[in-house]
């Protein structure tokens, strides 16, 4: 199949970028979208042009490295799919697809489609953990945890930290990412001990990083490759209010 691409090219963080048109004639419906970009890059290399830079690593939807706006949607049109697992069978021969980086002030562009998402690491470092040092743990079965609770926690823990929630949010909010970690840890007895400190610190950090507010559009949930529910955001707010009131 033939695919036309309009790809965002930008030299560096401070330069201005633009959309550039390319055509890949040798696309196959079995390819992943990133493999299509690989083919484009081989093409560019042969013609002596600079390849399009983009991040990717595991290419099986779990590491969260990849993340592109494909046809206006974070990770592309297929639900619950990271762009590395988006296959070209989701498109038609002759389609023109716009490819842009994830955009947010807190995700500055490094080059072309590569952005800096270290703000997420700083949100986790703010208190996205249980303060337990190695060796001090009791027996794993010492505290029973109901299956439902463990399953709920797992739903939130599934977050891959790709940043699609921020990219898709009209406000550029990181609420879903932050709420996922708060909910994952807050649901489990091991994490509940520090729940108040955690939610306060992480919410504050989210603000410091310059993410926008949440307007409950739920666009984040719609693009999340793991389908993480905005119920987590409600949970984060409850936990935050509880924290404020108990202080």
């Amino acid at each position: 199949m033939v695919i036309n691409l309009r790809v965002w090219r930008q030299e560096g963080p401070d330069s201005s970028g633009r959309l550039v048109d390319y055509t890949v004639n040798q696309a196959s419906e079995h390819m992943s979208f990133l493999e299509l970009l690989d083919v484009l890059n081989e093409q560019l290399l042969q013609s002596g042009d600079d390849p399009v830079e983009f991040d990717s690593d595991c290419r099986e939807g779990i590491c969260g490295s990849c993340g592109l706006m494909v046809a206006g949607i974070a990770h592309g049109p297929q639900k619950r799919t990271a762009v590395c697992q988006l296959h070209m069978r989701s498109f038609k021969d002759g389609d023109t697809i716009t490819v842009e980086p994830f955009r947010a002030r807190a995700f500055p562009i490094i080059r072309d489609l590569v952005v800096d998402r270290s703000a997420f690491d700083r949100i986790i470092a703010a208190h996205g953990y249980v303060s337990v040092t190695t060796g001090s743990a009791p027996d794993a079965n010492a505290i029973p945890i109901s299956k439902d609770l463990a399953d709920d926690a797992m739903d939130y823990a599934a977050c891959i930290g790709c940043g699609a929630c921020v990219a898709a949010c009209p406000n550029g909010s990181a609420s879903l990412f932050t709420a996922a970690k708060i909910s994952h840890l807050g649901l489990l007895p091991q994490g509940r001990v520090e729940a108040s400190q955690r939610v306060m610190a992480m919410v504050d950090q989210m603000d410091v990083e310059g993410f926008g507010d949440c307007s409950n559009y739920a666009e984040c949930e719609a693009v999340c490759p793991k389908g993480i529910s905005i119920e987590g955001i409600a949970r984060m707010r409850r936990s935050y209010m509880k924290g404020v009131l108990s202080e």
Partner: protein
Amino acid sequence: MKLMSALMSPVGRKVLTGVTGIGLVAFVIAHMIGNLTYLSPNEHAYNTYAYKLISLGWIFYTIEILLALCFILHAIVGISIQIRRRKARPDGYKKYKSAGSPSYQGYSARSMIFTGIILLGFLVLHLISFKYGPGQAEGYTVTLPSGEEVRDLRRLMTEKFQEPLYAFGYPIIMLLLGMHMRHGVWSALQSLGMMSRRLSPLVYSLAAVLGILVAVGFLFVPLYIYFW
């Protein structure tokens, strides 16, 4: 001080919007029900209702002040969220679209800031026309069956809604109010942490019903006055 900074946090801002929003929804519903007394066969019903409200004295004034606070906070936080939104993404997308369900990013959600600003403007005009409009001094006086001489709001309303601008402008604004509530009611509950995966779709639909009911409820009186 801790509480202030908590209220200014991303969660605090949403809680403020949610709480004030719910206060405003309660007001709007009460107002709408009050308006409907205009349609009562008893021609004094509306003025009696208005008089009873005023007679509540300090309770009435406290509610008025609280409502004013709700309006002001709701507007300030709403506008500040909009300003942050621009800051959070200074360079927009060349191409952007919603991924669809379960996203609630429909017309009503996307237009909250516009419907909100229009409602704010409307509120000012509305207060000028009615609350601070002509009163007993200007001759809008009526005697209730119970004997009290009160402001004749019914007449004021009848006159205003005989003007086409009011009769048709007002319903349009009320449709915008319905839209604002369609996303707002659910959103307020979500902001207060009351929603869950199972509850959300249900409440979101109920919010739509409520939005429509309020809009329709407010439409009755002006259209009735103009056409009958």
